[in-house]
């Protein structure tokens, strides 16, 4: 469509109006993370100050942040791996055999309020002595990751032409062989989408870990949250922690931008 000249002048202004409010909280977080407490609580807010790394030092040295980072990684990687293991065959089956009901059934896990599983889990895991264990956390995070895998991959598998499998099967290959050797290698972009998104969701999850983990398996969001509950908020420390927790998700998004956009939008557009 041809743009009117008025629009061409206003377009850059509109872009700035979109970019600035979106980015400003990130910028402020970054700036505050390298401010001293005095600079943070000064009024009016300071834009020019002497940067310091003390907050990051405190977070990683005094707060055991590395441990929580490792916990979050263990839980994220394990739950995503298990979700792929269970979700990929399920998604393939949904796509190839048209199992719509199964798809809806697994998606309900995405729609239900998490706390409605959490309370029974809390009771059962306590009785089984699984509180503060990686097992409990990983199991709970699979329920976050697997629906994403099934959602993204069933749509993706539907787009893989059936003829490729059929011709392999005429040559004597079994369907599971066709899935593993033909469909799956062709679906790498879909798997990247599903993996990135489900890892980010697991990484960001707060509620499940808040209830199921304690000192040993505490994940990053809980550590960041606990940082706040000090008598006087150590804003610099909290902002450094916020930067540290967001960095991995943002780096992943930067690398896999195309896939993340696709994953977040595909369900709605395909309907």
């Amino acid at each position, binding site marked *: *469509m041809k*743009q009117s000249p008025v629009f061409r002048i206003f377009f850059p202004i509109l872009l700035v109006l979109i970019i600035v409010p*979106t980015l400003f*909280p*990130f910028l*402020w*977080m970054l700036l505050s993370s390298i401010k001293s407490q005095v600079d*943070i609580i000064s*009024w009016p*807010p300071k834009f020019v100050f002497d940067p310091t790394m003390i907050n990051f030092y405190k977070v990683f040295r005094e707060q055991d942040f590395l441990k929580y980072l490792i916990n979050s990684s263990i839980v994220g990687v394990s739950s995503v791996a298990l979700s792929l293991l*269970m979700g990929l065959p*399920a998604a393939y*089956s949904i796509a*190839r055999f048209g199992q719509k009901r*199964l798809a809806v*059934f*697994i998606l309900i*896990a995405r*729609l*239900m*309020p998490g*706390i*409605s599983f959490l*309370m*029974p889990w*809390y*009771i059962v895991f306590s009785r089984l002595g699984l509180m503060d264990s990686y097992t409990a956390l990983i199991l709970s995070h*699979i*329920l976050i990751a*697997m629906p994403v895998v099934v959602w993204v991959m069933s749509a993706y598998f539907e787009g893989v032409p059936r003829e490729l499998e059929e011709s392999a*099967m005429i040559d*004597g290959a*079994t*369907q*599971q062989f066709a899935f593993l050797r033909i469909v799956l290698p062709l679906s790498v972009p879909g798997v990247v989408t599903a993996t990135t998104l489900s890892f980010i969701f697991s*990484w*960001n999850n*707060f*509620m499940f870990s808040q*209830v199921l983990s304690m000192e040993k398996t505490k994940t990053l*969001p809980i550590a*960041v*949250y606990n940082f*706040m509950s000090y008598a006087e908020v150590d*804003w610099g420390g*909290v*902002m450094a922690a*916020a930067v540290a*927790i967001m960095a991995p*998700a*943002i780096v992943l*998004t*930067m690398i896999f*931008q195309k896939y993340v*956009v696709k994953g*977040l939008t*595909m*369900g709605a*557009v395909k*309907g």
Partner: protein
Amino acid sequence: MIKSGFFERNLRYIFPLPALFFVLLLMVFPVAYTLVISFTDWALTSGRPMKFVGFSSYLGVLKEPRFIDAFGRTFSFTIGAVVLEAVIGTVLALVLNREFVGKNGIKFILLLPLVSTPVAIGIVWNLFYDPTIGFLNYCLSILGLPQSGWVTDASTVLPSLIMVDVWQWTPMIALIVLAGLAGLSSEPYESARVDGANSTQIFCFITLPMIMPTILTAVILRAIDALKTFDIIYAMTGGGPGYASETINIMAYKYSFEYFDLGSASAMLVFLFVLVLAASLGVMRLRKRFEA
């Protein structure tokens, strides 16, 4: 086919089995358990065993003004946030729906709020909202406007939380609608231009009806998530000041894991399911009407 073993013939049942088993074990069983608990009087702190009491937990919850307020608040929060996000998000998408240098950069910027950890987002916004050192009160003072208590004031806490939700989730609607716009066929536009339609007419009679199903799907997804919002509210206000920002989800959480009154908490959760279910069905029906 030459060989057709048991595995091969029953692939359609065997492939989904692990996922199905997992969902049954970790979702269906717990939800059924919640339903059972909702018909009992069970408080972990009282030391009494679970007792079947029929609908009395439901009646108790319904008689509780705090729950009625939380129920209404859940609606206000969801409707306020989702309407703003749908309108602003659609406008953003329409603005961005053209080729320009740096379009991918903008898409990346729009992704940032979506992939950020909600708890951390909540904390950053708390710094903005801080009445004494916050950036927002500084902006108000520059403009010569009276300062606000933001999340520390019962009268402004809900709009303040809605603003955070709008900041975080408007980009999702924008990206979804943008993807929807990219998938539209150009034929209706060409024939409209041949017929001499102006750009307002083209927008109202072609673009909007064609992307309406996409917008509505985005709205369903967003509304369901907004009804269940937990992290942001819990991290920013914990439901306070007083109960001024307590939604059903937050209240059920407190009843479960702070007061350990599982009977009442389960009853609240059942109300929340029904709400989520009704919202999904309602909007899906609306969407069907638009497609027809």
